[in-house]
Structures are given as structure tokens and as C-alpha cells.
């Protein structure tokens, strides 16, 4: 379990806005509605959804809690099929030879090669199982602060889209500028002074 491991990596978010009523129910509904499907869709290259922290591979929010003290803790799972390039090369070589033998020609056209590749990719994509990646999410709702336990850009992008779709709340990634804007408590005048700063030059 990533969140409880000895070392963690995280990117941080500020959550704009709050729910009008019953945050716990709204979060529960969002998690259930956008949970990762229990059955893998063999035609989808990539799929993402929520799953309980304690049960990453059996997404059942009725059985497993997402509330721990005053925090919400759950996981985002991204299942992705990836076809190794070497496997595609191998299948291409086999199919091209077969096509040549069937047609009696000693060459095949560029278009025929593209068609072969498309068929191979289709077949492999259906056969290939998805590889799951699980990223934990810790949300302090009252403080409007959230940790996503990864720093991978692609996972961050999936998270931002999925979170907004699920809860209709916008997660704002925290970095120097957004920290000043959302968490600093600085006055507008102080913020203005910060935003007019230019880089320091120490060299003489």
C-alpha cells in the first residue's frame, strides 16, 4: 500500500470550492459512479477509475471505507495495455512472409503492410491484459488540500480529469504560484509584490 509504505512521493493540490451539502455522501457517490470497472474491457487501451485504498483490485466502496478519521483516502487505478514493439515486429515479419507466399509475389505494397500492422495491433490489443497502476489519494476536505501519491505527469493529468468529472470540484496543482494564490493568506498588495518579482542574479 503506497500510502503506508516507508517512503512516499507526492504532488499536492488545492481543491477549489466545496460541496453545498453532505460532502461524505457526495464523495461516496462520485467514487462509486467513477469506480474502475470490475471487469476489464478488452477493447479499451486505457481505463482509469477509483478503487478503495484497502482493495485496489476489487473496487467495492460498499464493502471498504474511504473515510479515515477526518480524511478521505482512496486510490486511482489506471489500467493500460501496452504492446511491446518487438512483438509487433515479430508478428509483422511472420504475416508479411505468409502474405508473400499466399500471393506468389516476392514483395508487398506499403498499403498492404499498413493493413497487416493494423490487424496485428487489433489482435494483440484484444489478447493483451491490462497492466494496473495504483496511485493513492489523501484528501483533507476541510483544509481543501489533497495529496496524490505520485509525481508522474500522465497520472496527474488522469487524476485532474477524473477528479473533476467525479466531484465537480477543480483540483489546482500546488507549485510556487498557486501556493501564493491559494494557501499563503497574503493580502492582494503582498501578492502583487510577489508577482512582480524577477529572478535574482548573484553573479558579480
Amino acid at each position, binding site marked *: 500500500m503506497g*500510502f*503506508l509504505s*516507508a*517512503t*512516499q*512521493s*507526492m*504532488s*499536492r493540490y488545492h481543491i477549489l470550492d466545496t460541496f453545498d451539502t453532505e460532502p461524505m455522501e457526495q464523495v461516496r457517490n462520485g467514487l462509486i459512479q467513477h469506480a474502475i470497472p470490475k471487469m476489464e474491457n478488452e477493447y479499451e487501451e486505457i481505463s482509469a477509475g477509483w478503487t478503495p*485504498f*484497502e482493495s485496489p483490485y476489487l473496487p467495492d466502496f460498499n464493502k471498504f471505507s474511504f473515510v*479515515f*478519521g477526518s*480524511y478521505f*483516502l482512496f486510490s486511482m487505478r489506471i489500467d493500460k495495455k501496452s504492446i511491446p514493439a518487438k512483438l509487433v515486429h515479430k508478428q509483422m515479419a511472420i504475416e508479411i512472409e505468409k502474405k508473400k507466399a499466399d500471393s506468389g509475389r516476392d514483395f508487398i505494397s506499403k498499403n498492404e503492410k499498413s493493413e497487416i500492422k493494423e490487424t496485428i495491433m487489433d489482435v494483440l490489443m484484444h489478447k493483451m491484459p491490462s497492466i494496473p497502476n495504483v496511485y493513492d489519494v*489523501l484528501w*483533507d476536505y476541510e*483544509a481543501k*488540500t489533497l*495529496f496524490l501519491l505520485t*509525481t508522474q505527469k500522465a497520472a496527474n493529468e488522469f487524476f485532474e480529469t477524473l477528479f473533476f468529472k467525479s466531484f465537480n470540484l477543480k483540483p*489546482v*496543482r*500546488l*507549485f*510556487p*504560484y*498557486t*501556493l*501564493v*494564490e491559494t*494557501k*499563503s*493568506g*497574503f493580502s492582494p498588495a*503582498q501578492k502583487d*509584490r*510577489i*508577482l512582480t*518579482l524577477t*529572478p*535574482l*542574479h*548573484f*553573479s*558579480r
Partner: protein
Amino acid sequence: MLDISTAYNKYSFLGNEFLTWLWFMVETGQDITQAIESRDPVSLDIGNSLVLENSLGDNAREKITIKGDQAGLEEGTTALKKGAKVTEMNLICQLGPEEEYHFTLKGDSFNITGLKTPAAAGDGSDDEIEGRIIEKALLGFRITQVIDTLFFTFLKQRTADDWKHKGFEQMRAWIYND
């Protein structure tokens, strides 16, 4: 608020300057507890890695990485003299008498990697899981709060009227060993 990606690029220098300032604070033995007006004692130390970057124009960058538990940081100060800024830093933060945190902070994104918090209590059984989660969460939020407070303290100094004659000159004197 500005467009997020524009703001990310435009103000990433503030994060890098912040890390450079933290290094200055540690190396010159400044009182961190006092600086952030903390009730509990807070101390910082540079951990086992430091990354600096220097823009060479035309999108070219020079990157200096110093790694190792007992690594000398002289090359880092040499890089600072050439105009480099710290972009990534491994830190050890002591909060109170017992809590020690290790982590690497990136200046542009404020991403935290390799965070080791003090060990959470409990025997690891499922019954204890809620307690462990809450404790781990508290520790995570505590250290990020310290990082944020340090950053805002830096910004207050950086925007103060006497910055040029005080903070900036002190940092420059440290870099040039005056």
C-alpha cells in the same frame, strides 16, 4: 488567477530561489524556528543530494548534481557564482525532539519525493490500519505545512523593503565567502 501553465513557467524561479535560500539558511546556521515563528523547535539540514541548474541561453542548460552522504558542496557554491540556482534538494527536517523527516523537494513543481516520515505507531495488523493511516496523514500534512511556512517566510523577506541590502547581500556574501 493566471493561466496555470503560464504561471508554472513564469514563477518557477521563485521555487528555485527558495531552495537556494534554504541552503543559505542551513549553511549559515540561521535559526529556522525563529524564522518561521514556530512554537516547536524546527531544524533543517542538507541531505544527500543537491541539483543546480544554470541557464546558458538558447534553451541550453547546465545541470550540476551533487550526491552522496558526505558529499562536499563546494561545486555547488561555484555553480551559484556562475549564476546557477538550486532546482532540487534533499533535506532532513527535525520537528520537535523526536520527529525526523527526510525528503527531496523540487523547486519548480514543489513535488516531494522519497519522503520518509517518523515511523507510525502500531503493529501492522488490520485493526490498527485506521490509526496508522490517520497518523501517517497527520505527519504528511505537518511536514508540508512546514515547507509552505518556510516558503512564505522566504517570500516575505524577498518582498521586504530591505531585501536588497539585507537578505540579498547576505546571500551574496555567503556565496562569495566574503
